[in-house]
């Protein structure tokens, strides 16, 4: 039986992710990997809106930050247990996504973007100014990582596997969603909203349900973020966090499952590792982003796939130069 190459690629990727704590020698890099995984869940959730729904949001940090604040506040300051704190944090953040979706989906395109940005900044302002509750600029800390099923999440490798399991579940659920009736409806509303209405689809409701689903996964990322950092500050809710998530999605490839994961890896590595060697690492990030837009406007994952296909279809070296070739690009 011949195994498809895509299956082999997936298996290799999964094996590499599982083996990572053994492949890298220091806890520092395992922690970086955990950060990538958490960022990937956030980017995947944002990709539901941007890639599959055509709704570009600049307020997605809201769900990351609110879930993080809530879980830390409830668990470390209000006396809730870890499970109750986590469930309430995710539930309340999802309810917030319901409200934000209701407000933001009154507009589309640039209007939608501006409303999400404004809502995100309102939360940032609240976190910054309501110091008695949020700790203001000093942030909120004091959370201890839970011990689910006796696992010691203080161990970097165990924590990495813990968040990796969540990424696996997120990928599976989102992949399932994308192929579902609702997911396909969402993609239809992205491409032809007017036609979809004429076909009997309630475009607003489909977008709202998807918005809430994206908010839920943003909340899951927020919970894991809180467990990782054991601290949250207004910076988590800031526009720059939303912009970073947007960058991850666009750089990796919108409307793909792996794109946001690769985009998250790129941004987190540049932010945490390259910044140690290059002071102006943001300039490097900008240059990389411009290069991606120029050479792979569809993003890294679809772009690299296109390049690999083109290389595979390249004619053999001994083929006459004037022979027709499918690999030949358009005339420039």
């Amino acid at each position, binding site marked *: 039986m011949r195994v498809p190459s895509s299956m082999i690629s997936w298996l290799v990727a999964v094996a590499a992710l599982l083996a990572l704590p053994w492949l890298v020698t220091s806890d520092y890099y395992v922690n970086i990997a955990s950060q990538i995984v958490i960022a990937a869940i956030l980017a995947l959730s944002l990709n539901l809106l941007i890639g599959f729904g055509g709704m570009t949001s600049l307020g997605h940090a809201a769900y990351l930050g609110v879930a993080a604040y809530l879980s830390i506040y409830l668990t470390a300051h209000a006396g809730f247990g870890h499970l109750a704190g986590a469930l309430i944090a995710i539930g309340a953040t999802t309810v917030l996504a319901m409200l934000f979706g209701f407000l933001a989906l009154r507009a589309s395109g640039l209007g939608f973007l501006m409303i999400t940005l404004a809502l995100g900044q309102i939360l940032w302002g609240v976190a910054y100014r309501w110091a008695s509750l949020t700790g203001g600029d000093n942030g909120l800390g004091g959370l201890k990582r839970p011990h689910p099923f006796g696992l010691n999440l203080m161990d970097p490798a165990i924590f990495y596997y813990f968040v990796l399991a969540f990424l696996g579940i997120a990928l599976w659920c989102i992949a*399932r969603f994308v192929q579902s009736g609702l997911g396909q409806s969402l993609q239809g509303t992205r491409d032809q909203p007017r036609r979809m209405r004429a076909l009997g689809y309630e475009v607003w409701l489909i977008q709202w349900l998807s918005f809430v689903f994206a908010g839920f996964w943003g909340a899951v990322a927020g919970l894991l973020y809180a467990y990782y950092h054991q601290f949250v500050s207004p910076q988590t809710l800031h526009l720059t966090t939303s912009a970073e998530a947007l960058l991850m999605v666009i750089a990796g490839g919108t409307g793909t499952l792996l794109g946001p994961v690769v985009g998250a890896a790129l941004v987190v590595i540049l932010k945490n590792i390259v910044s140690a060697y290059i002071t102006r690492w943001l300039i490097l990030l900008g240059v990389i982003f411009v290069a991606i837009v120029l050479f792979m406007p569809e993003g890294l994952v679809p772009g690299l796939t296109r390049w690999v296909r083109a290389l595979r279809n390249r004619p053999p070296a001994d083929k006459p130069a004037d022979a027709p070739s499918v690999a030949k690009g358009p005339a420039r």
Partner: protein
Amino acid sequence: MTTPVLEVAGLFRYFGGLPAVRDVSMRIPVGERRLLLGPNGAGKTTFFNLIAGDFPPSQGEIRIFGQNVTRKSASQRTHLGMARTYQIITLFSKNTLLHNVVISLVGLRKIRFNPWSDLRRQTSLWEEARATLALVGLEHVADRTVAETSYGERRRLEIAMALAQKPKLLLLDEPLAGLSADERQDVQRLLQSIPRDVTIVMIEHDMDVALAFADVITVMQHGQVVVEGSRADVVADPRTREVYLGH
């Protein structure tokens, strides 16, 4: 007396100060083939969009199957049994023809809200879509993407997507526009084959085709109904000549 499929009373639509549709009233009984004629800018497509629910009228009332739908959304009207095609082809170009028809079928089913069930595994839907494509003669290109098909095939796909929903009221906005003579004949045959229990309202510029198809013709100009009647009445009416030839 049976309830008309479509009833429009005193319909107005203004864009700014410009009246695109002015005091249009119409009653279309079950099974009728109604043709809307008129020069460009006569308000035919705006009238269609008002019936379909793309935007609300400035004044007037629309009833479909006896129900007042004036303030109902386009999707709510579709669920009552109305389907439409577009003058400018509006398809999902990256998807296959089969997928386009499946999207059309899903629009009327609860599965459109299901976040879990894999649409690819709904074999009955895909079989139904394939049968619909066979009905319009597109079975052989069912697995091609829309981008890989000819203009005539896309026009037929537009009709297939509407027919897939088994409508009782079908609005066709220039279904023959841009087609070759052979393709026109194909589409004409297809339209003739639609059962009589489906009421059809069609906008068309080709007089020969249109006259052969229609039971009743409504001629519009400047957003108003100028002439309405049987084929013979409309052809004989001097106002029709005036609308088309200006004298």
